[in-house]
Structures are given as structure tokens and as C-alpha cells.
């Protein structure tokens, strides 16, 4: 797991997870507009993370596959992309899929 930390507000951070860990076929077409604004020159520039919503009960933790964050390695810019035409879920349970267990 990784963290996206706000530099403007230190109290704000978003937990991120590699979507391919639990959705091996995860894929989408990045709209030209987004690729351009992120300064992408090749597909290798991109890496993708989804936002986790942590909840008290670990089994309730979900990942947002509907609106992943796309980062550009070259420019260090990122943006959240809403995959409107996809079937991906806004709240995909991740806990069981990752084989994690809660410790007491």
C-alpha cells in the first residue's frame, strides 16, 4: 500500500493500492485529453493506483476501481479518471481478495 499525501494540508492523505493485485485484467483507455494534460509521451510514463477506503472493520475496506488515479512518471503529475463507461465498481471489497487477515 502507498500513500498520497497532501502537501497543502498535512491532515489529508489517501491510501492507494495497485489495482492489478486484485483485478489482474484491470485496464482502460486514458482519454487523449488526460494523457496530454499529464504530459504523457508514452504508455510507459503512466502508472495507475486506486484509492482505498479504509473502514473500522477490515472486511469492509474497499477500493475505488471506477475512478483510479493515473500518475505520469515523467512530469510527476497525476489525475483521477472517472471510467464512466466501465463496469468497474466504486466500492470493490479488497480484504478477502488480498488474503489479508486482521490481528487481534
Amino acid at each position, binding site marked *: *500500500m502507498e500513500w498520497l499525501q497532501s502537501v497543502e494540508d498535512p491532515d489529508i*492523505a489517501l491510501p492507494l493500492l495497485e489495482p492489478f493485485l486484485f483485478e489482474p485484467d484491470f485496464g482502460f483507455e486514458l482519454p*487523449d*485529453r488526460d494523457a496530454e494534460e499529464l504530459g504523457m509521451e508514452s504508455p510507459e510514463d503512466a502508472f495507475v493506483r486506486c484509492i482505498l477506503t*479504509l473502514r473500522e472493520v477490515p472486511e469492509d475496506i474497499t477500493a*475505488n476501481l471506477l475512478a483510479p488515479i493515473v500518475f505520469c512518471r515523467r512530469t510527476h503529475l497525476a489525475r483521477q479518471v472517472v471510467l*464512466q463507461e466501465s463496469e468497474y465498481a*466504486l466500492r470493490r471489497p479488497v480484504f478477502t481478495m488480498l488474503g489479508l*487477515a486482521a490481528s487481534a
Partner: protein
Amino acid sequence: MLILTRKVEQGIVINNDVIVRVLSIDGERVKIGIDAPRSISVLREELLAEVAGENREAVVRPSVGTDQLRRLRRPPQ
């Protein structure tokens, strides 16, 4: 807000390159066609609101969130 009355198949041109057209009306459901350049983002309003809401829910105050994270362990192999 600009309010226009349109009949089926009538359209609205926005900024010369976006055309919004009423395709059909069936009771409370209106089918709308949008012709826009690929550079224009078109999203359902409620979908955007849902994503924004989920983002807010996902925000963790770092000092609070780490406690929850510590409860997660990989099971012994």
C-alpha cells in the same frame, strides 16, 4: 441558468462544437445525445458526486489511519 424548451430531435449547440440533442422521451426518461470533441469531458452528474463523496470518505488523517493499518497483517504461509 439558461432554460430552453426542446422537442425530440431538436438540439442545442454549445460553443460551436458541442451539440446536445434530445433523442427520445419515454415517460420520465429522456435520452440525450451529446456530440463533443474528445477533449471535452462528459460525465453523469450523480456519478461525479458519488466519486467525490467516496474520495472524501477515503481521506485519512495520517495519525488516525495508521492504527487501522497496523491491524492488517499477512497470514502466515
